């Protein structure tokens, strides 16, 4: 291998090794460290793990986070699908490109500010309740509820889910849809007989991204959901910022990573599973 090739490879390996792998492995190691007199000490003890895994509030948080992220994934998938379907099958290619560009924008704009906007809009004296009030409805409590959390999660994930679903649907071979019609498939059955099976991999990957993003987000459950109970990311923040208990926070982080790896592996298996070739 010559110097030219190494000049491109080594700096990247060094940088990512030092600043990506380094932090991750250190965090895993840290979950076994001890804290004495507010100072962290290198050790290999299972105390943090034992403590965190036996606390009811940790498991409450875990299942609440899991459930809310799952709910957001379900809602995002169902809400995005008709929109993605419209973009894939009912508009011109130029319109589709424009729409995807529009959907990329929020991905790169401050999620924090968008959440704050929702907070103001959904508040009891906010715009939506004021609007409903004029027709004699409400006010409804939307903040500090699971509804608020899901609205927050969707603010983060919906554009990405729509984009990924649109790409999956637009890439379907139209001949296969026509072939289904030709073999007697009525219009109302094409969706589940051909379109969904053909786009399956893309739809699952979109849902997976939605789950990962929601599961790791602290803004929506904190500001929109009222943090009752706190989700795992909020637990990490509280443990790190106020308690100085970094090793315990690391335990929660490692739990989250293991969960996400399992979910990702299962989704990818589901998405790309091939039938056995007998």
């Amino acid at each position, binding site marked *: 291998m*010559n110097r030219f090739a190494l000049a*491109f*490879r080594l*700096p*990247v*390996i060094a*940088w*990512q090794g030092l*600043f*990506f*792998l380094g*932090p*991750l492995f250190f*965090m895993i190691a*840290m979950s076994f460290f001890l804290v004495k007199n507010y100072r962290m000490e290198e050790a290999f003890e299972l105390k943090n793990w034992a403590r965190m895994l036996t606390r009811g509030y940790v498991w409450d948080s875990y299942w609440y986070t899991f459930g809310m992220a799952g709910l957001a994934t379900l809602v995002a998938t169902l*809400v*995005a699908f*008709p*929109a993605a*379907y*419209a973009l894939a099958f009912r*508009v011109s290619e130029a319109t589709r490109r424009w*729409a995807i*560009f*529009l*959907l*990329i924008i*929020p991905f*790169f*704009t*401050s999620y*924090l*500010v*968008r*959440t*704050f*906007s*929702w907070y*103001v*809009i959904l508040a009891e004296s*906010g*715009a939506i309740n*004021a609007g409903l009030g004029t027709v004699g409805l409400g006010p409804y409590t939307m903040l500090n509820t699971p509804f608020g959390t899901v609205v927050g999660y*969707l*603010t983060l994930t*919906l554009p990405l889910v*729509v984009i990924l679903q649109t790409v999956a649907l637009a890439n379907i071979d139209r001949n296969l849809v026509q072939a289904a019609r030709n073999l007697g498939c009525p219009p109302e059955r094409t969706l589940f007989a051909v379109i969904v099976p053909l786009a399956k991999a893309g739809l699952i990957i979109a849902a997976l991204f939605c789950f*990962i*993003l929601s*599961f*790791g*987000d*602290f803004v929506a459950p904190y500001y929109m959901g009222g943090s009752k109970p706190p989700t795992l*990311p909020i637990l*990490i923040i509280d443990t*790190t910022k106020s308690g100085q208990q970094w090793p315990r926070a*690391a335990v929660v*982080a490692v739990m*989250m990573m293991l969960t*996400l790896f399992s979910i990702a592996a299962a989704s990818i298996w589901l998405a790309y599973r091939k039938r056995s070739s007998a």
Partner: protein
Amino acid sequence: MSARITTVVLLGWLLLVLVFIFAPIVAAVVFSFNSDRFPTIPLGSFTTHWYDTIFADAEIGEAARNSIIVSLSTSVIATMLGFATAYTDYRYSFRLKGPYLALILLPPTIPLIIMALAMLAWLSWIGASGQLWSIIIAHSVLTAPFAMAIIRLRLNQIDPNLEAAAWNLGSSEWRALRSVILPFCRPAIVSAACLTAAVSFDEFAVAWFVSGLNKTVPVIILEIVQGNIDPQVNAIGSLVFLTSITLVVLAQVFFISRIGRT
């Protein structure tokens, strides 16, 4: 025709989804010019008061300066990392290429809060936390994959014989890189720099954890939001939107629009 009705319903739904996505962006801008402390319907009167207060605030000015330094530095480092990986992937095949690519592409699949904790712990351990450049290091890792993806897409479009032709005509590898590959990739490089700057400019979780006293704009927003309802957030937010959207549009103008067409 029922097909026509279905189409109308689908397009209507699409419109609602777009409204949901863009409502908070539009609302933040509208509220930032609204005199009410707690905006609702009907709106109060027009004011630039909130902008006046943030421009007068020294802490916000400091944060803006920090944000600009961080996002510019991040975009330079991340684009260099992205280019090196994209070029290596384009030109070479070697054992362990999979892990090599994973090393640069994986960070976005890990929740930011976990990256934040890991970065904070590691950087403090090696004595590099609490500085402006701590944020730059962390952000370069988080944003390099975006640069890699955009530059790699551009390299897909190059005629693979172009570089070999330059060597054949007597260029050294460095010379061919400078005179063939870099000019070809220039739009993608500019675009990658814009997008990585935009991501860095908006990132708050990792910045909040590792920044110490050197706050960036999103960290300030986070702190204000943790306090009370303060319409200053809308004014700062509108300016942040303006910056990010400008960067994304620039990226689009330079490159993304060309990927879709051959």
